[in-house]
C-alpha cells in the first residue's frame, strides 16, 4: 500500500529548538519518519544555479593567516574533471563553528564564514580559508585540524564526502580518531601538502589512488 510520505499534517508553530533546548514544544508526539528526498546529480549545468562571486572565500580576502587550498579532481581514466563543484566546511582557528547547531554555541571569527564552494572549470578548484583549530572528538580527545569536503559533479548521483587533513600536522594527525581508523595508504589520500600559497589537495574519484570517501 502506498501513500504519499510527503503529505504531512500542517505545522502551525515555527520550529525553534536548538541544541540544548527541549524539542518537545510545538512538535508532534513521537517520531514521524518521513522518507528523505532522493539525491540527484548536479548535472553539467550547475554553474547556472550554484555560482557565487564570493563562493571560494571561506575566509574573506585579506584575513590574516588565510591561504588557498587548490586541487584537481581526477576520474577513473586519470582525466581532470572540469565540471565538478567542491564545498568545504570547517572550524575556525579557535575550533569554533559559525553555526547555532554547535552545542557549545555559535562562534564568530573575524572574516571567517567556514563554508566555501568552488567549481573546477579552470581544471582545479580553489578555496581561500584559515587553518581550522582542533575540535573535540566526542570521545575525550581532540580531532586533528580537518575540513569536511563535498564533491558534486555530473556522473555523481549523490555528493561524495571526504576530509582534508594537513600533512604538516603530523602530531595532531597521529591522535586523530578518524585517521587512526585508516591504513597508511588511505591516510595519505586525505593529506593536503604545502604549496606556494597554501596547500594542494587533489581528489581521485577512482583508481589506485582513490581518495577515501566517507559515509556520514
Amino acid at each position: 500500500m502506498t501513500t504519499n510520505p510527503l503529505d504531512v499534517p500542517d505545522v502551525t508553530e515555527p520550529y525553534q529548538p536548538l541544541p540544548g533546548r527541549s524539542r518537545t514544544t510545538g512538535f508532534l508526539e513521537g517520531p514521524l519518519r518521513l522518507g528523505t528526498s532522493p539525491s540527484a546529480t548536479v548535472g553539467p549545468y550547475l554553474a547556472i544555479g550554484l555560482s557565487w562571486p564570493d563562493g571560494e572565500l571561506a575566509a574573506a580576502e585579506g584575513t590574516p593567516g588565510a591561504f588557498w587550498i587548490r586541487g584537481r579532481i581526477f576520474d577513473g581514466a586519470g582525466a581532470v574533471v572540469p565540471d565538478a563543484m567542491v564545498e568545504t566546511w570547517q572550524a575556525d582557528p579557535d575550533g569554533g563553528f559559525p553555526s547555532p547547531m554547535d552545542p557549545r554555541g555559535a562562534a564568530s571569527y573575524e572574516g571567517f564564514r567556514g563554508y566555501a564552494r568552488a567549481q573546477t572549470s579552470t581544471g582545479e578548484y580553489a578555496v581561500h580559508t584559515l587553518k581550522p583549530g582542533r575540535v573535540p572528538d566526542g570521545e575525550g580527545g581532540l580531532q586533528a585540524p580537518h575540513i569536511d569536503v563535498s564533491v558534486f559533479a555530473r556522473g555523481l548521483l549523490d555528493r561524495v564526502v571526504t576530509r582534508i587533513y594537513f600533512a604538516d600536522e603530523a602530531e595532531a594527525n597521529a591522535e586523530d580518531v578518524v585517521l587512526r581508523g585508516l591504513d597508511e595508504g588511505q591516510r595519505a589520500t586525505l593529506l593536503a601538502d604545502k604549496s606556494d600559497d597554501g596547500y594542494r589537495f587533489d581528489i581521485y574519484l577512482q583508481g589506485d589512488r582513490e581518495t577515501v570517501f566517507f559515509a556520514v
Partner: protein
Amino acid sequence: MESLTRGPYGPGMTGTTSPSGLHLPRYLREPDATRTPVGFPDYKSTGLRAPLRTPVDLPQRLTEITGPVLGEDRVLPTDADLTLRNGGEAVGQRILVHGRVLDSDGRPVPDALVEVWQANAGGRYRHVVDVFPAPLDPHFDGLGRVVTDSLGRYEFMTIKPGAYPWGNHHNAWRPAHIHFSLFGRAFTQRLVTQMYFPDDPLFGQDPIFNSIPAAARHRAISQFSLERTVDNWALAFEWNIVLRGTDQTPFETEDDGDVA
C-alpha cells in the same frame, strides 16, 4: 503507511555523549533501499566518476552536525520570479512552484536557502556546454533563489522547463525537471536534487530518474496544485523536500553547561 511508521532506526537511539558531556544529535541516514546510489550503470557518466570503493563510516562529530548559516543575504527580491529577466517576460507556461522544506521528523526547516536552476521552455540551458539547438530566451536565465519562511515554506514563479536530449543513449531525453540545492542546518543535511512533474512520459527511459530506488521515486515528483493555481496567470505545482532528521531522543537536561 510509509509516512507514519517508524523508520528502521529504533526508538531511543541517541547521538554521541562524550565523557565531557558533549551531546550531539545524530542525523539518520536514508536506508539503502530508498537512497539514490552514487553510481548507476545505465547513467553512463557515473562509470568513471562514481567511487568504486565502499565509503568509510564517519561517525557524526561537531563538523558534521554543524553547517553554514546562509539566508536572506544570499537572495535578491527578484530571485523568486524567474519569469522576469532583462526587462521582459520569459516564454513558456508560467508555473508557481511551492512547498515546504522539512526534516525527516516532520519539522519544518525555516530560514533555509533554496537555490534552483533549470532549462528554458524549449529545453535549453543558458550554459556554454549546452549545444541543443533550441533557442535561448533573452528573458530567461534559469536561476532562482529563495529562503524558506518560519514554517519552512518556499515558493517561486517560473516557467515549465522543456525536456532536452542529452546523449546518454539513443533518443535519451531528460524528463522536465528543476534542479534544487539545499543546505538545511548541518553538513549532514546537504542535498542537491531534481524535482519532476507528474505523469511525465519520459520517466521510463531516464536513467537519472530511475537511479532512484522505485520505492522512493514518487518523492521526486511534484503534484499539480489547483488550490494554488493562480486564476488567469499560472499553474501551480507543490513539492515538499525532506532533509535528514535527527533521532528523537530528548536532551536530558536544559542546563548542560558542561558541554565540551
